[in-house]
């Protein structure tokens, strides 16, 4: 298993490398002077461009520039925000908790619904419930999350007045759990609804695969009840691969978070990147993009390692 984990980490390294390369190419293929990616065009009016170019090493060939830039990234230097004049990493750091907590709550909600729904769909294949869940999952992937969010705000915040429409907290002085919960519930549900579909379908096909297995027949032949056969013997086997699915879904969840955070005024990284586009704050945009990609890779790495720990089969292979 140790070998497996090491192998998995080694696989992540080229991915990270390619991702930095792609990000770097975006910066350098941009129309106009790439220098404006590093300094604010406003302040650049008053200084000698050549001097700045030299200062940032922009007069050097592209591959050298890449390694210089990469060295900075490896030292956690994501640049300085044009607007706020402080390190991008520091800004991300402030927003990280909000984004992660939103994603975590939404992942929990979506699993709590998707797993039982997927199992019921598989066990009662072609039943009314199966069709219902499959139609629901189609709706989930098809509904624009920003619009769905707006409609929920319209219903629950404006018409019914049950829940706040935006932000993270009302009470800044102390930590109020109920208040937090009220704020997170709508955005988390919207985010969960969009990502639930693939989990449900994956759970369904995973379960269908498992209930055909010989060991399920063995379990039945022991005289176990159908409930135990499904929820004990089949469940654990069908659930394990879902852990790795989480790694595959992370990019989508991040993407979904951008829209949801924007609509609900959630102070996370997604909202920050959208807001930065209006002020053309390139270091923040690029830093957020790169940072979230790295988080995704780390996330799927953790998911795969968890899978290796949870599945006794990996130990012996």
């Amino acid at each position, binding site marked *: 298993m140790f070998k497996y984990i090491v192998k998995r980490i080694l696989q992540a390294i080229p991915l990270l490398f390619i991702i930095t390369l792609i990000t770097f190419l975006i910066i350098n293929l941009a129309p106009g002077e790439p220098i404006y990616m590093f300094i604010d065009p406003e302040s650049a009016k008053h200084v000698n461009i050549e001097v700045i170019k030299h200062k940032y090493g922009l007069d050097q060939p592209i591959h050298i520039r890449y390694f210089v830039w990469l060295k900075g990234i490896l030292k956690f230097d994501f640049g300085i925000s044009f607007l706020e004049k402080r390190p991008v990493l520091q800004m991300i750091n402030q927003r990280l908790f909000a984004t992660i907590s939103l994603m975590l709550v939404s992942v929990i909600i979506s699993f709590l619904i998707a797993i039982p729904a997927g199992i019921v769909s598989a066990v009662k294949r072609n039943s009314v419930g199966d069709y219902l869940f499959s139609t629901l999952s189609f709706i989930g992937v098809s509904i624009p999350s920003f619009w769905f969010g707006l409609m929920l705000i319209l219903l629950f915040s404006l018409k019914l007045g049950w829940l706040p429409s935006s932000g993270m907290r009302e009470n800044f002085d102390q930590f109020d759990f109920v208040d937090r919960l009220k704020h997170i519930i709508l955005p988390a549900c919207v985010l969960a609804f969009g990502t639930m579909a693939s989990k449900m379908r994956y759970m369904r096909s995973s379960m269908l695969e498992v209930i055909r297995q*010989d060991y399920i027949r*063995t379990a*039945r*032949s022991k*005289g176990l009840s159908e409930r135990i056969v499904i929820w004990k013997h089949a469940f654990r*086997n069908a659930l394990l691969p879902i852990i790795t699915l989480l790694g595959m879904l992370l990019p989508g969840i991040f993407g979904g978070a951008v829209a949801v955070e924007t609509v609900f005024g959630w102070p996370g990284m997604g909202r920050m990147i959208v807001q930065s586009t209006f002020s053309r704050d390139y270091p923040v945009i690029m830093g957020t993009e790169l940072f979230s990609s790295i988080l995704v890779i780390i996330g799927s790495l953790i998911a795969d390692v968890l899978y290796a720990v949870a*599945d006794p*089969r990996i*130990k012996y*292979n």
Partner: protein
Amino acid sequence: MEKLLEIKDLKTYFYTEDGVVPAVDGVSFYVKAGETLGVVGESGCGKSVTATSVLRLIPNPPGKIMKESQITFDGKDILKLTEKEMRKIRGNEISMIFQEPMTSLNPVYKIGDQISEALILHQRMSKKEAWEKSVEMLRLVGIPMPEKIADEYPHSLSGGMRQRAMIAIALSCNPKLLIADEPTTALDVTVQAQILDLMNELKNKVNASIMMITHNLGVVAETCDRVIVMYAGKVVEEGDVYSIFEDPKHPYTIGLLNSIPSEYSRGKKLDSIKGSVPNPLNMPKGCRFWPRCNKAMPICREKEPDIIKLGEERTVSCFLYGMEGDAK
């Protein structure tokens, strides 16, 4: 000896998208208390389906046991029991060993837990008692270091060891009937012999009846008292081991015997039965064996042969023996 299990006119059909598959089509036989019955036939002839029907574990849909079928076990009409009553029989009074030892154990539970499960369920043992009994069962089936193995996951065991563990599960509740569905087919030849020896040895110890399903006549010769021969969902011949081997009646049985190397066939050319198993969706009319039979007569294509009683516990289903004065 009394009949422990009696099957009459068992019909198990599968309703697939392509049509109805009559996997088992009117099979009748019985197993007496304490005996080992061999069920032989080429693969696809419905042996496993027969066995799974006894436990009522046919996946439905697509499978269905037809109404006219009758299975009596120990005085109980199996097909009329409720699901709950049926669960009390599975694993407790009738248990089953499967062909695929590599995949028949749940990969995410420990061996000991998988044996304990049946004990806790049927014998109302506590977790600890069940675990101790599991270790004991593992020792009984000849697994070295049973305490350690009970604590392992199936993936650390070889095929032969896993099959022993399966046998331990099957025997843990002292069943009256053990159905062994090709228990050695997937194993190495040397391991096969060990497992068969083990089963022979245990049979005397636990005093269970065994239904030994196999396509290997060598296994039959080694373990069984009586044999039924199946072809395309039907029983074609039945008899004690001695008469089946010495005096086979049905052309299919004769073909089967000729296709295995044995001391009788030494020096002779081995021949196999020509042709192949019929498509279950499109069974030949009349006797299902006639397209491959070297003694086929015109009537074989027209009518299905009746089951003809040749003697005490000796039947054959073939027109060669239907005519007066032609028996024997």
